[in-house]
């Protein structure tokens, strides 16, 4: 995979591939691909039964990498996911048994069902790229991609993720109900076997790492960086927002925007990329003031408002020569 043409080809193939399993969710699939290429993690929040797990599973299976799934439950302990050191009686030594977190692609199912203690073990790995077990720091593999799902926190038996931890997800998505037409086609082809089992890996770990390097080299002009900063700044100055987007969020936004441009087969970023990324990258990173609740405002609507009020750089004002 040397030329960029081939890279783009592979990406669209990946997206098509996943779509055969999850019908009518191309947008979500694309966004997850964005996170994968940008080197971030994804949090999918939605009601049960819309296909979160299947979707994530399909993506994981399309990449020929070490795939681990962790089903979070209230009684799950940190060592259950990080792995633990046990005493090997055979050679009379303590040896480390890696937990499911040591894989390339992690499906953290229902992440908000477990206790904050276990959540933070996962989140350390997501942020730092390594985990600490029994005082020993162990590196995670180069490709470490967490896709977490959670039920909306209003539902029974959940532990909401703290803000600091939400910040570590590059994107927060929701899937939503499929269209009527899509759902009809879903009914038509309720398979007699699990479609996931047919999926073949399309990308290798090396491919993903190569694509990530490509994404990082997507050109972002000065105007575009200023445009990003305008939006970030606006979240910090908005009267209804108590806590604006952190610099981590800014970097995340830049990566996401680059990835979107890359997926759109461009080697440069345009304002439309930013507009496409901002709702998913920023909405979960802001904390609203109490007043927002009185006005019935959601973070997403405020982010949309900011986008709709920020001037787009188009270099049209310079004098015509």
């Amino acid at each position, binding site marked *: 995979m040397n030329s960029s043409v081939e890279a783009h080809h592979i990406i669209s193939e990946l997206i098509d591939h996943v779509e055969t399993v999850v019908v009518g969710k191309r947008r979500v699939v694309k966004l997850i691909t964005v996170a994968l290429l940008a080197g971030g993690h994804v949090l999918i929040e939605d009601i049960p039964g819309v296909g979160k797990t299947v979707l994530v599973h399909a993506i994981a299976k399309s990449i020929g990498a070490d795939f681990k799934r962790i089903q979070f439950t209230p009684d799950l302990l940190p060592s259950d996911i990080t792995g633990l050191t046990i005493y090997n009686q055979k050679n009379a030594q303590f040896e480390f048994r890696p937990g499911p977190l040591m894989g390339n692609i992690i499906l953290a199912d229902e992440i908000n069902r477990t206790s904050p203690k276990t959540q933070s073990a996962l989140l350390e790995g997501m942020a730092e790229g390594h985990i600490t077990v029994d005082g020993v720091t162990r590196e995670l593999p180069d490709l470490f991609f967490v896709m977490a799902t959670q039920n909306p926190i209003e539902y029974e038996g959940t532990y909401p993720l703290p803000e600091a931890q939400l910040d570590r997800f590059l994107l927060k998505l929701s899937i939503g109900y499929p269209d009527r037409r899509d759902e009809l086609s879903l009914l038509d082809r309720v398979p007699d076997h699990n479609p996931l089992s047919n999926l073949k890996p399309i990308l290798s770990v090396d491919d993903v790492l190569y694509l990530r390097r490509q994404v990082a080299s997507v*050109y972002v002009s000065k105007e*575009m960086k200023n445009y990003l900063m305008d939006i970030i700044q606006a979240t910090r100055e908005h009267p209804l927002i108590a806590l604006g987007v952190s610099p981590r969020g800014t970097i995340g936004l830049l990566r996401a925007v680059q990835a979107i441009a890359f997926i759109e087969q461009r*080697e440069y970023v345009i304002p439309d990329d930013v507009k496409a990324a901002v709702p998913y990258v920023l909405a979960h990173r802001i904390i609203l003031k109490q007043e927002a609740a009185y006005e019935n405002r959601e973070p997403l609507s405020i982010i949309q408002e900011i986008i709709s009020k920020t001037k787009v750089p188009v270099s049209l004002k310079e004098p015509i020569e």
Partner: protein
Amino acid sequence: MNERPFSRVITAIIYALAGFLLWLCARPLIELTILNSQSLLVIFIVVMILMFYLRMPNWLCAIVCGMLVLHAMHHYFFYTYPILSADWLIQLGEGISQNIEYLWHGQPTEESDLFSAFLFFLLFGLILFAIRYWLQKGRLVLFTSLAVLSGVLMDTFTVYDGSKTMIGIVVCALLLLSMWKWKNFPLKNTEKKELKSGFSWIAATSSIIAVIVVLALLMPKPESRWAASSDYLSGFGLSLFQNGPFFSGNQRIGYDDDDSRLGGSIGMDQTPLFTAAISGNPGYWRVAHKDHYTGRGWSNNEPFYLPASAAKTLASNLSLYEDQTKTNKQTAVLHFSKASPAILPYSGEPMQITVPGKQLKIEQTTGQVLPIDEKRVSSEQLAYAEPVYQTSILRKATSESDPEIIREHYLQVPQDLPDRVRALGQRLTAGHTNRYDQVKAVVNYLRSSRFRYSTEQIPRPSQNQDYVDQFLFDSKVGYCDNFSTSMVVLLRSAGIPARWVKGFTSGEFQGQVQEKVNGKNMDLNQYQITNADAHSWGEVYFPGSGWVTFEPTPSFSDPSQFASASTNNDSEGSSSEQPSGSSERAQSQQDGAAQQPEKQPADHSANKDSDQKKNASANNSPGVGMNWFRIGWIALIVLLIGALAALVTRKKWLRAIYRWKIKKNPLHSTQDFRNGYRLLLRMLELNGVKRLDTETLREFATRVCHQNNGNALLLLTECYERIIYMNDNRIPSMSAERFHTLADQLIADEPNAHPQERLNKHKEK
């Protein structure tokens, strides 16, 4: 975002109504004051309101407003100057600074009409800006109530009858308010409903207003409580408001033989008396001089007439100039109107006065020429000597060489002349050694700002008061009689022979006419002299030069021509008959800084008050001043019309320019592409499709492509994006032909249909 589809029209109507309302309110001011030119005010309002409507920035409006104020000042006070000259600006600046000084020293009564008018226009400009502010902020209730209030005040406290204007103001104010209200009404969802509601709104409000007006007119109205409210108020010191220098009164004045008792106000009357077609420079028209000052006025001696049929008698009896005064022979033809009294005015030293079919006589002591039957004549032909005084010679004159007869007649002052007048006369002349400078000192003293020129509210001297003393030390305000009498008396007090002359100023220039003089056709400059041009001035005797005219009244300029030594030869060479006096202009080189430039008539008829005209003076000959003025005006109007036309048709020609520029674009570089793309967007904007600031190019392009059912803009946008977001400055990825094809596609579907309609059509699809 959501604007009423024709909200610009409503705004235009609101602005127009506001301008009209202001005009209604300002009209009484114009009619009551000397600023009696409606058109100027209309231009002022129209230009400013138009600029406000077009949302011109405030600084630009302020500049234009300042220019309009200056133009108004030029119109009223300096119209004889070319509008593009700096002279009048300097004079204006001096006048204003002088008046500010008076104000500073707490002498507000000293301020001149120039200053009042200047302040008036400045205030008017400020009011216009206030209106802009009110219109922008929606303070229309304040504006309209102030307008109504001003109308009421004008009607009540001035002589202006505002009953009709009041109706106009109220109707206009109500209309304005209703339009405003409607403009701010919540929007209806479709244009059709919008239009319908607009019509019903207008119909409803205008019928309500009509009903109110009709009811108000039909209602019984109580008689005014005050017999005449304006009289009532004048008792409270508001009289200035009606009779101040700024307002004209009702007295009449004309030429009057009786000067035995001077004083009191005079009125201005524009009745034409005669026209004078002259070959020389415009000079004063002399009717008579008076010798004997009584302390109240100039006495009427028993007339002693001599028949004056022969030229010889005339010359010997009316001799004004002696050998050392150079003269130019000139011709004049006068035609008298029916209103004229029986007078035969002359200019300079008459050599021959001819009235067809009439014998003439000369009054010896006054130099007055009359027909023998003392009846009005219809025309008069005059050959006269126009003097050019030699300043250098005048400066040599001293009191020693005065002939005895002159000393006997022209040094008379009444026995009971107050000492302070005498002392003043001696003090003023004390510093100067020669007669000319002494006279100039007195003249300059009278022309200084100590005294104010006015024809209104001039107190009559009391029974025992000396006329000159009252003016010089008491009232310090007066008109030509005060100034000229004072000058003569002051000079006589200082031992300088002088006499008082009455007649007319040179009048108003009317144009060139052809007159038959002694069987020859001559081109002459014709002047109109009215009752308001009646005037008096002084003559001073200079041994060797004769009687020299001096003008002591401020705001009148000296008609005499003084030649300094350097221009002597010129004036000699150009003596004899000179039709229009172009070379004489050289002679009118004035000496002395205090000497005002010679007054020249100008093409102007709007200004009714001749006294104001005397403020204006010019160095140029009538033709030049007039032409500059005309050219300036025409150029201004043409420019304005051109600008307006350009503004109205700007979409058309901008489109044409853009189209041409796009066609011409060679697309050699990315810069070319950028320019081309930007022009395309501007073109779309002209067609009513505008990109929002928060819209990305692609979103905009998608929108446009949806409307136009093509993807030209989208393709162009992709290329443009590559250039600006990639900083890709290599050759554009699009070929020139492709660009032009796409551009043509984009511009081709020009908005024959309104973009809104097209959008609707699209929705229907």
